[in-house]
């Protein structure tokens, strides 16, 4: 009995999960198959019928045949606070908060993160954030020094530019807690970055996010023409070569 019961809710779970992306589709289909799946539950008791029957049927009764890219989520960006899903719209002051779109008007755009190119904003003087809490005239100490980090894999090499960073940050934000200030002294890998270490302390949180569109911002130096992928030790030490 328990096997059968488990199998039933598992099927339901899977059906729901598969059906979710199709939920928003415009294409409406007859409700036949869903009703069949559903009735196998409802006959067990009223508990299931009580959990929002209409919602579940809406999930399951839409064909996913005409959904072009079913897992690619498109969502609007820069929503005003009352609609953004983390601000409470029952709070009066929420409506006094500034919508991001209003603040970002006139700043150079991108297609990721805040949809704002923060580096260009400063370079073009479209934005002049203070370097000091009270004195608007204090200038940052900008260090123009690029550090090239050769990448073992076939991705272009990484160029770390001090200039763009010291426009925003003090040396002590990175040195020595995140990076020892010596070329090549730090072990950096993509997995560490994705887990929120090294460059990932800021990138992927406040500075531009790490996604397909941004790889080239860091991986910006093409490999030399004669570059070949390194051979693994299994190949180089192969005694039967």
């Amino acid at each position: 009995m328990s096997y059968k019961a488990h199998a039933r809710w598992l099927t339901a779970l899977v059906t729901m999960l598969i059906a979710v992306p199709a939920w928003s589709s415009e294409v409406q289909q007859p409700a036949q198959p869903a009703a069949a799946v559903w009735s196998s539950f409802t006959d067990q008791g009223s508990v299931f019928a009580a959990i929002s029957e209409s919602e579940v049927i809406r999930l399951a009764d839409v064909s996913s045949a005409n959904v072009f890219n079913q897992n690619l989520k498109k969502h609007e960006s820069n929503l005003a606070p009352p609609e953004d899903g983390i601000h409470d719209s029952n709070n009066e002051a929420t409506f006094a908060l500034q919508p991001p779109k209003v603040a970002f008007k006139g700043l150079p755009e991108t297609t990721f993160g805040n949809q704002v190119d923060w580096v260009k904003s400063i370079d073009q003087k479209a934005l002049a954030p203070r370097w000091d809490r009270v004195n608007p005239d204090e200038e940052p100490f900008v260090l123009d020094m690029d550090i090239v980090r050769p990448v073992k894999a076939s991705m272009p090499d990484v160029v770390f530019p001090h200039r763009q960073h010291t426009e925003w940050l003090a040396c002590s934000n990175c040195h020595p807690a995140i990076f020892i200030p010596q070329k090549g002294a730090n072990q950096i890998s993509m997995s560490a970055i994705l887990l929120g270490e090294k460059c990932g302390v800021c990138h992927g949180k406040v500075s531009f996010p790490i996604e397909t569109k941004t790889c080239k911002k860091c991986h910006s130096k093409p490999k030399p023409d004669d570059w070949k992928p390194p051979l693994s030790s299994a190949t180089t030490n192969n005694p039967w070569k």
Partner: protein
Amino acid sequence: MALNAQRRNLGRSAVFAMMASLTAFALPQVAHAEYADVVINNYADAAGMRPVVFPHWFHRVRFRCKVCHADLGFQFKAGGNKINMAKIIDGQFCGACHNGEIAWSVENCGMCHSGIPGTPTHFHGSTVQRLIAPTYKALEKPADKK
């Protein structure tokens, strides 16, 4: 006996089905917030206040990171600074600016305490969160606060 077992099983599957449909419908909402918004909720919920939403984008239009993260000593860790109202009124953390001189002062509770009750401390839009924990679990309320 057998009947009991069946009931228990049914209850469990109902909970599962509910969780599945809840996450399915709750998620798209959460995903719309502005990149780099921080929800800070170490103490607020337990004290009956809405969680705090700190908008990075709004502040970086006015200040460089250095002002907060070097001069004012904010650590790079959501919820890691143990901010509370006593410290703010004393002029630390948010209170270094929200003092009626650089920015409006602390009596505007709702401007900072604007999050949906129950939202746990997190960094909105973070790559780590997307990869490892795509759904936010609400924190358990302490038993005596229910």
